[in-house]
């Protein structure tokens, strides 16, 4: 790896850390601004004496000044010390440990599948611009792209689970020793919904990008040289057209994460997003803060990976 590349990656890493700090700060301020505190939740136990309540307030650090709390919060988040859930009385890690891989799979797999499939479909339909396949793909992508994620989830649930009975209504196996097949059967619907939603955007973007590349002279040259259509399409055009696709990862990750959170809610998929929404309404600060942090980390990590990928794909980044 040459120094330019290293410098690029270090720069990216520094930027990611800055963004992470800013997001943590923003969320800290927002949590401070919430209409009620878990403080009030602590007071609700009838068995707790006032002295014990004060102890609990001290334990969770609500007696300290805001600035002190901020530093403690940052320290806890960065060292992954999430403490205990207020509403469930269990360590937050207990709740998270099983959920993180699930959400990561749902989110990661749908991004990867949609990008691979999207790039291929996008380049083929752009190559055969104006054909039936192009029209169908564009129209259906447009429609999917503009559908609210939860609604398409509900429709799929209605059609495939309720009417046709192909898939179970719950997105996770109920019996405790479950096989991988069980899990796949249960999670297929949320997965395919998220893939379709992300796919639509990718196809549209890839098609636009391809159309520009196809107009370049070197494509004309390649065709004039008598190369096979296939070779021109995938070797010359699609390769170059994937560059803008890689840059759109930033938006795509945030989009897919939003989709994952919503679909977890729709399909009762026991992931981080579902936990986040529930803890937010229960004012369970430690869980809400931890889940939000984990979700943010997933998106930022995704972006970082995309950056590295981009640097490999586009030599200009390394050479400049």
């Amino acid at each position, binding site marked *: 790896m040459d120094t*330019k590349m290293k410098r*690029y990656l270090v720069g*990216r890493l520094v930027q990611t850390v*800055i*963004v992470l700090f800013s*997001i943590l700060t*923003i969320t800290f301020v*927002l*949590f401070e*601004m*919430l*209409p*009620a505190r878990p403080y*009030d939740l602590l*007071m*609700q*136990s*009838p068995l707790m004496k*006032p002295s014990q309540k004060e102890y609990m307030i001290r334990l969770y650090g609500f007696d300290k000044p805001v600035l002190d709390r901020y530093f403690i919060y940052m320290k806890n988040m960065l060292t992954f010390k999430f403490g205990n859930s207020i509403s469930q009385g269990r360590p937050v890690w207990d709740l998270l440990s099983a959920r993180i891989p699930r959400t990561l799979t749902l989110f990661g797999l749908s991004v990867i599948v949609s990008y691979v499939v999207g790039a291929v479909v996008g380049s083929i339909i752009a190559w055969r*611009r*104006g054909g039936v396949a192009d029209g169908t793909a564009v129209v259906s992508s*447009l*429609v999917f792209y*503009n*559908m*609210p994620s*939860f*609604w398409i989830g*509900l*429709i799929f*649930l*209605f059609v495939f689970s*309720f009417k046709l009975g192909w898939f179970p209504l719950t997105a996770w196996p109920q019996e405790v020793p479950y096989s991988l097949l069980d899990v796949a059967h249960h999670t297929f619907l949320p997965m395919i919904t998220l893939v379709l939603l992300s796919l639509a955007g990718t196809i549209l973007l890839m098609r636009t*990008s391809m*159309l*520009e590349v196809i107009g370049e002279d070197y494509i004309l040259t390649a065709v004039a040289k008598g190369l096979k259509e296939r070779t021109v399409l995938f070797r010359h055009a699609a390769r170059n057209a994937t*560059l*803008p696709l890689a*840059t759109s990862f*930033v*938006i795509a*990750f*945030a989009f897919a994460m*939003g989709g994952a959170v*919503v679909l977890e*809610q729709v399909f009762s998929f026991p992931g981080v997003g579902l936990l*986040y*929404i529930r803890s*937010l*309404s*229960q*004012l369970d600060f430690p869980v*809400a803060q931890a889940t*939000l942090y984990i*979700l943010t980390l997933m*998106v*930022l990590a995704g972006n970082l990976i995309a950056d590295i990928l981009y640097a490999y794909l586009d030599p*200009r*980044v390394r050479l*400049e």
Partner: protein
Amino acid sequence: MEEKSQMAEYEEAEPPRSFSHLAQEDDGTTSVFSWKRTFARHKKQVLAGWKIYRKSRIGMAGMIIMLSFVFMAVFAPFLTPYDPDFIAPAEDVFNADYISIPIPEDAAGGMAAESWSVPMGSSGSTEALDTITVYSREGHAVQFSVDLIAAEGGGVGIDIPSSESYDIPVGIDVMLPVLFKNEMFFAIGNEALHELSYDTFTTSRATELGFEPTYYSNLWNRWSLTNTEGQLFFAMANETILSIYSRTPDTSMGMSTVKVFFDKVNISSYAETADDVIIADPIIINLADEENGSMVVVPTDGGVAAFELNISYSGGLFNTTDNVGLGDMIWYISYEDIGDQYSRDVEPALEQPIAISKENPSEKEGKNRIIFASRDGYLYSIFRSNGTLEWSTTIASTQIRSPETMGIYPTYRGVIIVTGMTEPGVGFITIVDPENGLIEGGGTWIFTPDSAVIGRPEYVASIPAYIFASQEGTIYILEETMELRATFSIPGGTETTTSYVGNIVNNIGSYQGNYFAVVTSDGKLYAQSITGTYVAPLPPGTYPSGNTYHLGTDVFGHDILTNLLYATRTELVIGIVAAVLSAVLGTIVGIMAGYYGGWIDSVLMRLTDIFLTLPMLVVALLFAAVLGPSILNIIIIIAIFSWAGVARVIRAQTLTLKTRCFIDAAKVSGASDTTIIFRHLAPNVLPLTFLYMVFIVSAAIITEAILAFLGMGDQTAVTWGMMLQYLKISGNTLTAPWWLLPPGIAITMFSLSFYMMGRAFDEVINPRLRSR
């Protein structure tokens, strides 16, 4: 380097937008600014753009769909079959018996015009509904006789064959809903307590009270609410006087006579309550055979006071030769004392600030605490025996925001009902556990009616369900888990704020039909069974009332077509306002960053990075939890999370424009930064701003829907997202496709129309995208 790559990134992700072909003639030639010329140039640009736009099939289709949505929004009142707040009548949504009968005009005085109070029912010897009575302060009572008939579907129906009018004492305020098998019931008025016979409404006994009670307590009865054989007593109060009235069968003479006793105290004669005023109903707690067991608890404007009840017992029954009198004050706890511990200002809830945790007076269990509600949503449990604080809690959460508690009621199940208003003006009803004040069901047993609940809720054990009436005149029948079982508006009653509800048959597990009755604003008695089947959401079709619901109804009985069309208005406002806000913000940030460069550029672009990178929806949910659900806040949230993309593109565009000759020319001719930004840069990036605005409208609608679906929507507004949210929370997702499909299709079409317009417009300002 890093900076540059990012710029390149974005220019490639969104292909470079050059529109020099439209404005070429100006390059390098314009040195003096002229409005006329600018106008002419823009007109030319727009016309040229339109010519290109017109060729785009996608763009034209999008525009047609968009225009039809605008048409729907503007002409919604003419296109919809019903009013926006229309609710399907009970005969359509509820398979149950109902009856509506005018209150007869009396020959003596126009009785129908009088203001009637809560209808009361009474059961006859068969425990079935026998009569319904309404009365007025003007001294009239009308008794409707009720016949039970077989209703459709095998249920029990009622028929009202006749009615009888009676004169009662004038000025009667409260008729205690206590009646004894067609024997007698109580009425308060003219500083006297009347025992009225049920047959003829004549006063069989009147006790002078010496004050006019405005509050009265729960009734304690040795046997049950329908038995006159047992001993009974209850408390009454006005601002300063607390009194007790007891009525005991006296068997000492060998025959059945009735012994009545009345006692009162003035609370201002006690040091603790010398300056206090009673503000709500007193509560009787009677625990036979228990030390320090029987007391009257009364809330005042200064605190809560408990007075001893002097009852002597022998063998589990209280001694009928003794009277029930009021003793000394047992304890008093001021609001300062209650609030001290957490240094809060305690202000009591207005109408009903205290409750005991069991309603049935003959049960001992659960009566060791009194629960007090403050107006700002806190609950405090006070030990009955000594008035000290047991626990305190708040019902405020992200679902109940800034609650204004209005009432707290005990239930037969032992749980406590808390009602009130929340910030956006909707009501709330919730069930809390008296042991710790936590909302039951893990914080989920909450129902939000359209407005605040009036009066006390009725509990029907045989269903089981609670009945509530809201200020806007809607009746809600809720499951014990606060899930909606049925709802309907009172026919003809929504014109006035009054909606009196009375549960006709005795409500402790009656086996014959349970009815509620109201006097409607057009002077009719309306009685409706609540033991029927609620059939809403209704599939599309025509129903008994003659109404046709083209797209069916939702669970509340709202016509879906009507809601769908009216929602277009809200959606247009949300989409366009949010888009304009974020496009303007993004353009300003973009031009500033691009034009000034240097540290301004760095700071603004770092900020833009943060907003582009953060998982929007996840943070937006937290934002929504902080700001609270309202249309304005949703618009603000969408704008906050959409400007960054615009800023990026505008900055890149500004950077290319900056190097062009006409900017140099303007600089040389001495134009200020402001002039350059607003007269030279802004008009040139405007097409791009507009393009992004169109895309943001499309995204805003989807974001609004998602926020609504996740419970962060505005309950007071009709939007497509809220329609789907209600579908989810009412649990009809898998059973009501006529309700599931239209809002989703509307969201998709609306979003799609703007997106397609955006794509076509993109082709106009970006010639490389056009077909070659």
